[in-house]
């Protein structure tokens, strides 16, 4: 049974999001970490290498020559039954792309921390979600965090979710580059023992074992490939249930939980802001301010983008007049953008649907001040009156 950790055993530190993740990885007693530097993820690996250099972890760190090899080494290590993690962002994640699919399809429960960053060109080191959204169909579970505390907590929970035999899928734990990765916040850290008891030791399902040899990653043609994909899809479908159980246990230990979506004043809201990561924090402040003025706005913060919790999202927004999506990614040539596409699909079967507006914000680290959110809400009000809205538009950009 998981017990609540007494307050006296909790250490409070000021940590960046990257450092919080590094500490979580340390406490999860991972066996292998293999990574390649890229801003703004670098600190995770630097901090972890420091732990290794000081003998504070029993992890083998593989300082590979590329992200492609980083994830390849993770797959190899995981195939032997090890608990494995890596971290990346942007171009690094793009270079991993081929192996993302291998890791997921080979059902390796690797944890990949991503400090979300824009993709080239032009080269830009700042935050948006183009990198992980681009990998949304790779078969990774995707969890997005709003705070450094949440980054720490989510990393710990990620291993337990990934390694569950009903799941066996890799997880991306995503934080906004610089906004979280480099920003120091108050983080409550659990004692090592509590984390270790919580995550346990990985019990692999199938491993490369000379006494019981198996062939992993074979060629598989038209006669069986589809069945593999069917099973993979089933594993994805099992994620929400496992996630819920893991979070419940985590809550017993810490009092904290996040849910696959977080509802903030949505019950009676006419307009619901739908977003995730740090813009959700900004949106909360906007909701508070607008509520004081008597405006019925709310926020639905998405935590889990993959698998997409369509039902919870639908339930949470179905009574609203409009949902205003704020997303940091563009899907060039698509009717709208990834987050809005998901939402619209989730709502399609409703007889009475809220209007959906889609605002692309913050590309390449463009600041997203509260006024940007307000701007989107005001536009949405106008579109409600006009009974028509564009499929999407950009906010905060010179036209």
């Amino acid at each position, binding site marked *: 049974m998981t017990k609540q950790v007494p307050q006296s055993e909790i250490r409070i530190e000021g940590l960046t999001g990257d450092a919080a993740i590094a500490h979580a990885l340390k406490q999860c007693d991972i066996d292998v970490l293999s990574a390649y530097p890229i801003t703004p993820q670098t600190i995770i690996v630097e901090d972890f290498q420091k732990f290794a250099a000081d003998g504070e972890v029993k992890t*083998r760190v593989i300082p590979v020559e590329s992200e492609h090899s980083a994830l390849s080494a993770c797959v190899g290590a995981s195939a032997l039954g090890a608990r494995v993690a890596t971290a990346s962002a942007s171009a690094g994640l793009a270079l991993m792309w081929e192996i993302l699919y291998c890791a997921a399809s080979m059902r390796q429960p690797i944890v990949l921390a991503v400090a979300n960053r824009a993709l080239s060109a032009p080269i830009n080191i700042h935050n948006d979600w183009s990198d992980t959204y681009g990998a949304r169909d790779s078969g990774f579970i995707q969890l997005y965090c709003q705070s450094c505390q949440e980054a720490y907590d989510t990393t710990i929970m990620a291993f337990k979710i990934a390694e569950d035999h009903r799941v066996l899928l890799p997880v991306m734990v995503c934080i906004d580059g610089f906004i979280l990765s480099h920003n120091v916040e108050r983080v409550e850290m659990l004692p090592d023992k509590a984390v270790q008891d919580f995550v346990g030791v990985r019990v692999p399902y199938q491993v490369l074992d000379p006494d019981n*040899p198996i062939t992993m990653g074979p060629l598989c043609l038209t006669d069986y490939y589809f069945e593999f994909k069917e099973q993979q899809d089933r594993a994805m479908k099992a994620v929400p249930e496992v996630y819920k159980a893991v979070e419940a246990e985590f809550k017993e230990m810490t009092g904290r939980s996040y849910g696959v979506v977080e509802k903030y004043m949505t019950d009676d809201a006419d307009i619901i802001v739908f977003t995730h990561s740090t813009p959700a924090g900004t949106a909360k402040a906007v909701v508070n301010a607008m509520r004081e003025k008597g405006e019925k706005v709310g926020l639905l913060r998405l935590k889990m983008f993959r698998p997409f919790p369509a039902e919870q999202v639908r339930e949470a927004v179905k009574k609203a007049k409009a949902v205003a999506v704020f997303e940091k990614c563009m899907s060039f040539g698509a009717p709208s953008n990834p987050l809005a596409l998901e939402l619209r699909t989730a709502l399609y079967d409703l007889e009475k649907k809220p209007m959906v507006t889609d605002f692309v914000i913050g590309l390449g680290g463009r600041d997203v001040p509260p006024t940007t959110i307000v701007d989107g809400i005001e536009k949405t009000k106008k579109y409600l009156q006009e009974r028509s809205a564009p499929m999407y538009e950009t906010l905060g950009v010179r036209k």
Partner: protein
Amino acid sequence: MAVSLKDMLKKESILSSGHRLCAGCAAPTVVKLMGMALRGPTVVCEATGCLEVATTIYPFTAWKIPWIHVAFENAAAVASGVYEAFQAMKAKGRTKYEHLDVVAIGGDGATFDIGFGALSGALERGHDFVYMVYDNGAYQNTGIQRSGATLTGQETTTSWAGKVEPGKLQRKKPISEIVAAHKIPYVATVTPYHYRDFVTKFRKALEVEGPAFIHAFSPCPRGWRSETGKTMELARLAVETGVHPLYEIINGEEYVMSAPSKSLKELKPLDDFMKPQGQFKHLYRPEWESFRLKIQEQITADWELLKKKCGV
């Protein structure tokens, strides 16, 4: 370690019959010889290519030892992961094995070209594993395209012998020497014809501490347009004509000529190797005569240089 034929034959093959490699393909022989050298327990990490696709068509497998394939360019990186995971789990008391040999295998394309970065990285990091390339001189799995290992004058579907070009124009990448330049403890060239030399060297590669590299010559009747019964003869001729001389490089510096090459009084003419193969047929047209002679000159010069390095 000297290997006796009797001991070799006692070992159970690591590859079953029923794999789907072409008749006459040298790759399964290369793998079986490797198997005879293994001390075990062993994990094999393979790159995409003929050997991979033909031995593991789901739901069947020809492999009797643990084997993993992830992608085309990452066998060395996967092996790094396997090796380090074993070290970590051993330190934490989570494996029943005292020791694990890790072997990575790639075709020439996977090794000379696309996977070269991963190979170089793994060598530089010094993981204790053996990397073996089975070199059939082209991307055979995708239909005989040129690779960094393709010989000068060789015709492939991306280095055609046409009206103005005589097959591949460039030299073959000297992979063993490039690998040895990483100053790893052991590099050796082998062929499946010289089986005792092969097994002995592979065992040495396993026994040294740190990375080792085995460059196995691997005739491909399909791509080379050679008779299926001539595979072993072509492997022998590759040594006797200097196309694939047999030697070792110790610690990146010391060159040692192996007996089959050392015992050659002089090289046989390159024609002996080329003529039985359709992929060199065009070189015997009059317009490519001088080009062919140039290739011969190059091979001879390379051989003289190698002899010098080996002190013979």
